[in-house]
């Protein structure tokens, strides 16, 4: 038995062997080189050309790196809230082929339960193979590939990089990969918002933002009293509590507003949204009023023994109430304003929005109540 094997086609190169090869081939070769030489004084900017110098003198000139260029992984955080996107889901650690990603999950110090935030995060850059699988697999868009490639150093241990060095603000990533970030941005923030609710205190705040946030917190009470002209030392505690209540109410209203806004994108009539928002605002205002009343009430028994201190307290509480009311009003206005352009598109009523608004109102009320309680407590002390 024999097998017939068809061999592949042999390519015959026409070398143009003439009867009298008088060096024409050599001259043609020289001609090619001459063309390259004379063209080399121009820059070859289009890669369709085969002539011209295409050197990019690297340290001075740099090529625009493609967005999807990947070198080393970095972590992202939101520079507005300071929260990291990472929830320590361990997906990247699991998929990492050279196993250079290490992390520990954050735990709530009060309950000891794990929180969707990362406590420590380390990547060994020296062994990282820049495969980008970690960034591919991350469901929270927390780990991304950086464009920096000049990492050579004499200091080997410095190539084991911790969270502080890995963290980059989202603006940085939006700058190096604008289109890629635009694609995932919404999803990332949605997931972050959900995770932020389960994080308390400074857990999940980027280390470089912690300092800033602490400073903000420290600065807030010092900066505010001056324009308010509430210069009584004894009232500060109450004042603070009341103000806090007002702020919370305002935030709640705002949140209600934003939730409204999100929901409204679907299919809600203007009137329903409007109504819901207004309702929320009214409720918040009422809650704030009630809180103020309660604060007054709690102060009432004490008016008799302490004549000098009470008017101040009273004033502070009233002020807080007014602020809360104002905040609520503002929130309502904003809600109206934000919904206005969407009226045309949305036709049907939405119970969800109403629910959200009601929820916000309840929260505001609760916050106000809590504020009142705090005020009481403060007075008792």
């Amino acid at each position, binding site marked *: 038995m*024999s097998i017939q*094997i068809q061999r592949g086609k*042999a390519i015959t190169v026409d070398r143009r*062997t003439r009867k009298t090869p*008088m060096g024409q081939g*050599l001259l043609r070769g020289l001609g*090619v*080189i001459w063309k390259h*030489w004379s063209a*080399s004084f121009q820059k070859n900017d289009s890669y369709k050309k085969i002539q011209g110098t295409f050197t990019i003198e690297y340290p001075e000139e740099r090529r625009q790196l493609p967005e999807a260029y990947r070198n080393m992984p970095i972590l992202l955080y939101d520079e507005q809230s300071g929260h990291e996107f990472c929830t320590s889901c361990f997906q990247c650690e699991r998929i990492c082929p050279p196993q250079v990603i290490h992390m520990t999950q954050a735990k709530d110090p009060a309950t000891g339960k794990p929180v969707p935030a990362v406590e420590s995060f380390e990547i060994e850059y020296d062994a990282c193979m820049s495969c980008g699988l970690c960034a591919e697999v991350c469901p929270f868009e927390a780990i991304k590939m950086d464009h920096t490639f000049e990492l050579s150093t004499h200091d080997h241990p410095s190539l084991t990089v911790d969270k502080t060095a890995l963290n980059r603000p989202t603006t940085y990533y939006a700058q190096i990969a604008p289109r890629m970030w635009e694609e995932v941005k919404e999803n990332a923030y949605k997931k972050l918002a959900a995770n932020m609710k389960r994080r308390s205190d400074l857990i999940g705040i980027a280390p470089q933002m912690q300092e800033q946030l602490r400073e903000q917190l420290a600065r807030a009470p010092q900066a505010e009293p001056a324009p308010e002209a509430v210069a009584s030392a004894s009232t500060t505690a109450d004042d603070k509590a009341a103000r806090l209540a007002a702020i919370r109410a305002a935030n709640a209203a705002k949140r209600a507003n934003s939730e409204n806004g999100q929901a409204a994108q679907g299919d809600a009539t203007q009137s329903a949204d409007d109504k819901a928002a207004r309702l929320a605002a009214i409720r918040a205002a009422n809650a704030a009023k009630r809180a103020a009343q309660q604060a007054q009430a709690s102060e009432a028994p004490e008016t008799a023994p302490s004549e000098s201190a009470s008017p101040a307290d009273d004033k502070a509480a009233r002020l807080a109430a007014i602020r809360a009311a104002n905040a609520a009003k503002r929130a309502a206005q904003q809600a109206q304003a934000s919904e206005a352009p969407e009226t045309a598109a949305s036709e049907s009523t939405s119970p969800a929005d109403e629910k959200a608004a009601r929820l916000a109102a309840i929260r505001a009320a609760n916050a106000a109540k809590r504020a009142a309680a705090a005020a009481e407590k403060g007075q008792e002390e």
Partner: protein
Amino acid sequence: MRDLIDGLLNTTLGLGAPDWLVSLISYVAIVTIIFLVAPFQMLFFTMYERRAIARMQDRIGPNRVGPEGAFQPIADGVKMFTKEDIVPAGADRWVHLLAPCVVVAPTMLLFAVVPWGPGMVPVDLNVGLLFFVAISSISAIGIMMAGWGSNNKFALLGAMRGVAQMISYEIPAVLSLLAAVLLAGSMSLVSLVNLQAGLPFVGMLAGIDLGLGWLIFTPVGFVGAICFFIAALAEGERTPFDIPEADSEIVAGYMTEYSGMKFGLFYLAQYILNFLLCAITATVFLGGWQFPGVNWLYERAISPANPAGNGLFNVLAGVLGVFAFLLKTYLLFYVMIWLRGAFPRLRVDQLMHFGWKFLIPLSLVNILSASLWVACMQWGAEQGMGAIEGWSPWARLALAFVLTFAINLVGYIALVRIQAPTRRRPSRLTGSIAVP
């Protein structure tokens, strides 16, 4: 130079210096200048070659050290000096040490006969060309010493190849120079340059002296120049013939075991030899310092023929002459770089084949036409050329030109057709084959 010094010391300053002192001072000055110029030529050539070849390969080339990389060769030199000098175990220590010196020394000696400008030749030897050919082949001994002394098979292989190549290509080089010698009737390089004055035809003057009577404008000179230049490529180990140091086959040939400044000396010798080969090609076939205007200036300068000239014209003629000479030399070196950029290395057998079967017969044909040129231009009735004795010089020139052109062309075509490779049969790989 000697005339200049003599004029300066005895005529201008009136010192009445003895003859031997004038000679001593002038030769010391000349040698100093040459020993300064030679390494700088080498530095310039390395830079020139690297930048030019980079351009041919669509690159920029070294441009980091100094303005446009001008100090790159100096940086390389510093690197060479500071590197460790390694002598391999089992090497023949003294031979290993002497080899670079033996290679460098003759290349320096060659500067003795190169005419840089009008009246600017260190020594006007009446056998200048012979001196050049003889001394330049001494470096083959140095190469063999380097190969032998290194105790390395690659070094020895490279040295053997180098010597074989140099000996083979000496012959066409000498034969093509012989044609020029026939035309000039002298082996002195100065007389060869003087021959190439005038209009674009050797030795013909028609009123004004344009300094363009270069040999390359004649059929004899053209073929001779090409043959000599190809042979020079082989002698200078330039790329189509860089077989002795074929990096991809035998590491670096005879330079494999050399490091530091010993290697630097080989490098120096190679580039200086390349410079000299270009310079000799320019001198013999491209008129050396001959250039429109140089002769006019030199007629008014101080020279043995005209002692009452003006020193200023000496300087002007010298500057223009040296400029023309170096321009031609550098252009020829550009051609060397160009060839390096275009052609791959030959195999050893191809090299021998080309040298012995093509270049030598072609230069022999060229000698024939050179003799005919001389016969047509100079001979009279007593040499058997009575038929054309009465013709005008221009008619004789035309006859010589046509005759030599025809002979050279026919010779070239005949050689090419003899050497043409036979057409290959179609490959057996096409079609199907049966596997049992």
